[in-house]
């Protein structure tokens, strides 16, 4: 999932707050790294995703309500 593929995020959202776009990219990267990862690494990345999602929430992100919704 990249910012461009997040249906709830519009280009104007990203213009208003560039940090939102960067965090969404980071989240997409965390998801991508789960491919072919060990259970240990996968779980660690899931935990990292939880924290990134918290940060998105602080920025007023509303396209999703919780990480598992993706």
């Amino acid at each position, binding site marked *: 999932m990249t910012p461009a593929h997040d249906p*709830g995020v519009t280009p104007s959202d990203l213009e208003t707050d560039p940090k939102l776009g960067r965090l969404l990219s980071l989240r997409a990267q965390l998801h991508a790294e789960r491919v072919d990862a060990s259970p240990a690494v996968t779980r660690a990345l899931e*935990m990292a995703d*939880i*924290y990134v*999602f*918290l940060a998105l*929430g*602080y*920025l*007023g992100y*509303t*396209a*999703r*309500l*919780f*990480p*598992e*919704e993706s």
Partner: protein
Amino acid sequence: MAHAEDRYWNRGTQTAPREVLDAIHLKKIRRLVALAYERSPVHRQLYDDAGIKPADIRTWDDYFYELPFTDKPLYMSDQNDHGIGGLVLGPEHWQQFFHTTGTTGRFLNEVFTQYEMHKGGSQYCYGLWDCGVRPSDSMYFCFDWGMWIGLWSFYWGARNLGLTVLSGGGMSGKDRVRQIMEHRPTIVCGTPTYLLHLAELANQEGIDIRRAGVRMLAGGGEAGFSIPITRRRLIEAWGVEQVYDAYGVGEALFIAQSCREWAGGVHVIEDVCHSYAVDPATGDPVTERGGIGENVITSYTHLTQPFVKYRTHDLVRVDASPDHGCGWTWLHLPGSVLGRTDFMVTVRGVNVYPTAVENLIGELPGLSNHYELHVQSEEGMDRMLVKVEAILADCDRPAVAQRLAEHLRTHLGVRLEVDVLAPGTLPRYELKTKRVFDHRAAGERPQLELGGGNR
């Protein structure tokens, strides 16, 4: 590293204009209604019965006047059938299981994901950070880590903020006093009644708890942290600089917190929930500034079991434009929880709020903070008996009772019955103290139904 010099935990939303906040709320609510409809059979049934589809909820009027309320019986009914009410996420996502305190008669089972526990913990950071709490601080927990979520969520708050956690689990009160004296935490967390009890214990042991260097008392579960006289007692007994109040709803955790400028209440943490007050008789929003109504919430924290337009039955006074100098734009609830819609007592035409009685008891010398309110009905009229302990065993209890009855009559406008008891008569509690005993039969209690079609 967090910007330690910024007084706001999340300035972007914490000080945002109302229209910005409301736009974010409406987006989240619409998404949550859709989620509940898609994944929770009990919510789908509720909305289908009301003839509502998620796409119908587009405006605030749709939310206020068309979307049905939810209430505890809805979840209890589903819990009876499926173990947990209103579920949208299965056990592969669950991180921890809790239940409510059962204050209203039965436990409501609750499950939270890892994300929800962190999000629930974040609810504390706004107020604690504003009060100057930083990762170099430490928090001591005076509870036994049972199934009640209340102080567990404080623990997640401590984790979220980066505090050092000190556990007082499994300890006697005296052991806790000794630990506090030894480890010198900057914050001690518990219910107000229990923290006063610990100070009493320390005193009995000849220990001056004020020398522990505790800077802040924090907690919730009871109204005491919002009651001026109880706050003063706590400050005097512990020698602390700050008393931190948090208002919790078991289903959505501690949804409101006090700010540094404490103005007699708590701010709704609008990053984690939407809150508004309704007239319990009609279900319509209370719009006048300072008006009292039932708090109705939508939680953005507890999503495994969505609580959308959920009746808390707590009576609150809402100030949508707080101006006491903190800069927060989030709703302020002066007095925190004033009472309960399911515990409304009208004595000779006067609404009597338990928090008001507690404050008035505290204003009279010679009385302890240990009290109980007993309500019964005689010939259709509510009567309230106030039982309160004297501080000294050899005081003239009938005379003190007379003074208290007069004090209550002067300030409440109605005479309550008063019984002053010997010290140590009433039970002590570690968690929520049971203050209110309603002896009225079910048919004698006020039945408040929210008016309107879908409401």
